[in-house]
């Protein structure tokens, strides 16, 4: 178990390294002087020269990467010349709204999609099943921002139930926090529901065909217990896997959703940084998001041990 843990952690390092190299190269492949680009449009010649010296931009590219990666390992993502502060500090300030939005989205998505998927598999081929599959295709097709505006129009403008946009910090009370986050989370969870419900259905459908289901039913267990304790429990690994993979989708969705609902999180920061061509921030946010994605999937891999006792590493 511990040997596996160590091996799996070590296997993550090359992926993170490749991500770092790619993000590093993204800027070097840009036409023009990287120092001038990093400094932003408002910088003067001295500032540009300063950056060039700090990052070793007059030295070979391998040395440049060494300096950059060294800073990265020391927790230094560089400085945003647009926001005039450290990128790590910027990410820290913007973390709470994004974390809140993402967590609430996953909670809503799992609570809705898993029961739907189980019922669809249980009543395979029924109107409910076909309806869910049709919804799933539509969920994949409707763009997050189109859905966002439909919900704003209906829930906030017509019914006046929830705020149109904005964000309230968690510290200012759970009520306002939830009221501001509910609509964005529902918006964002739709594609996730489509994804997880589909996989839950397929996975539960597989386990419903197994002998132990017949045995469980023959024992006279209540159907709900058969479905949850026997069918769903054995179908858990693919479901958790798709939740992990779906984090990439979620991150993409966060960028759009925060923009529509004016939530001052990391997604909004990404878009603002791109519009300002603030490259240290763009690089920092992409690295941050990618590392989170890789680490969550590491956690997912490790969770298999608890979800399926047959898996021994």
């Amino acid at each position, binding site marked *: 178990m511990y040997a596996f843990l160590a091996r799996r952690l070590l296997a993550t390092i090359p992926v993170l390294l490749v991500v770092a190299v790619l993000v590093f190269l993204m800027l070097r492949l840009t036409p023009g002087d990287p120092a001038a680009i990093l400094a932003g449009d408002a910088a003067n010649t001295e500032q540009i020269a300063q950056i060039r010296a700090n990052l070793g931009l007059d030295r070979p590219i391998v040395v440049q990467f060494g300096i950059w990666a060294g800073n990265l390992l020391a927790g230094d993502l560089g400085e945003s010349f647009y926001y005039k502060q450290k990128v790590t500090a910027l990410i820290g300030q913007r973390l709470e709204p994004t974390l809140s939005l993402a967590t609430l989205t996953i909670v809503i998505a799992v609570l809705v999609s898993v029961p739907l998927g189980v019922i669809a598999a249980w009543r395979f081929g029924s109107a409910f099943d076909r309806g869910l599959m049709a919804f799933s295709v539509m969920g994949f097709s409707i763009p997050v921002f189109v859905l966002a505006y439909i919900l704003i129009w209906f829930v906030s403008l017509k019914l006046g139930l929830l705020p149109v946009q904005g964000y309230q910090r968690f510290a200012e009370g759970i009520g306002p926090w939830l009221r501001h986050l509910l609509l964005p989370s529902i918006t964002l969870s739709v594609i996730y529901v489509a994804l997880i419900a589909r996989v839950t259905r397929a996975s539960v459908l597989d386990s419903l065909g197994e002998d132990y289901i017949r045995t469980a039913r023959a024992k006279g267990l209540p159907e709900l217990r058969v479905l949850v304790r026997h069918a769903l429990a054995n179908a858990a690994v693919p479901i958790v896997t798709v939740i992990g993979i779906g984090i990439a989708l979620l*991150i993409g969705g966060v960028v*759009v959703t925060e923009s529509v609902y004016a939530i001052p999180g990391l997604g909004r920061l990404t878009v603002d940084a791109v519009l300002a061509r603030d490259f240290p921030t*763009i690089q920092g946010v*992409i690295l941050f998001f990618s590392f989170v*994605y890789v680490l969550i999937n590491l956690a997912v891999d490790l969770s298999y041990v608890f979800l399926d006792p047959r898996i021994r590493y």
Partner: protein
Amino acid sequence: MSAPNYEALSVEAAAVVRQQTAWERVRASASVRFGAIALAVLIGIAIAAPWLGTVDPALFDAGSRDLLPGKSGEITTLEGETVQHTFLLGSDSFGRDIYSRVIYGTRISLAVGVGAATLSLILGVLLGLTSGYVRWLDGVLMRVMDGVMAIPAILIAIALVAAWRGGLLTVIVAIAVPEIPRVTRLVRALVLTIREEPYVEAAIALGTPTRKIMFSHILPNTAAPLIVQATFNCASAILVEAILSFLGVGLPPDIPTWGNIMAEGRVQFVEYPHNVFFPGIFLALTVLAVNILGDGLRDTLDPKMAKRV
């Protein structure tokens, strides 16, 4: 008991003897038909845009600002003439015709969808064949692909567009890049399976050059899953392009794309929600059509993959 229906039996028997070809299964699929027809209509709209009662999507008239759908107003042509025009879907805050802009937007969306899907397919196939056949490169290539897949697709596209600045080709390339690894992995996995097949072994034994084995023995057998993957890539490319435009980091705002129209419309969303909804409906229906086509193709062309999902 009635006599058995021999005719029905013989039909069943014939069906067992002569299996449907893949092409017949594809043509019989309701999803494929629906998706293909919807897509054909959209392509028709894109080509025939100038003759569908539209005006030049860049034309505007200060007197025709923020008209509601169906209202009539004036529009100034490039020659400076003022003509009467019915704004079917209303006008935006510059006095431009939303209907014309949405119709012309079809061109951009389809071009980006098809362009990005084709580009990711070509590059993915080349990399996948290399990875599956040139074993010493496999490790390095696959690690790079793992790295690309670890970065959320929209972020790669946003960063590349920011680095290269907007333009149709830039946007297509930026959207295609994050789609490459999935194609590469698919091709690599297929190559690794197919190269163990007897007919490939026979070709190797006959001394067929590697390049010929790759392109005329292995590649044709990867076609079905690749077509399916390319269709899904096309749908996601159309979505990503709209997102980039909507966020203001895609094509320049003067180009009528659905994302750009929505980005302009969102400013006055409360008063004029239709400026956001009309392009949104077109976008959602287009992506839906491509996805349904992909589902149908997957179910008929690639039953193994259909079972996995």
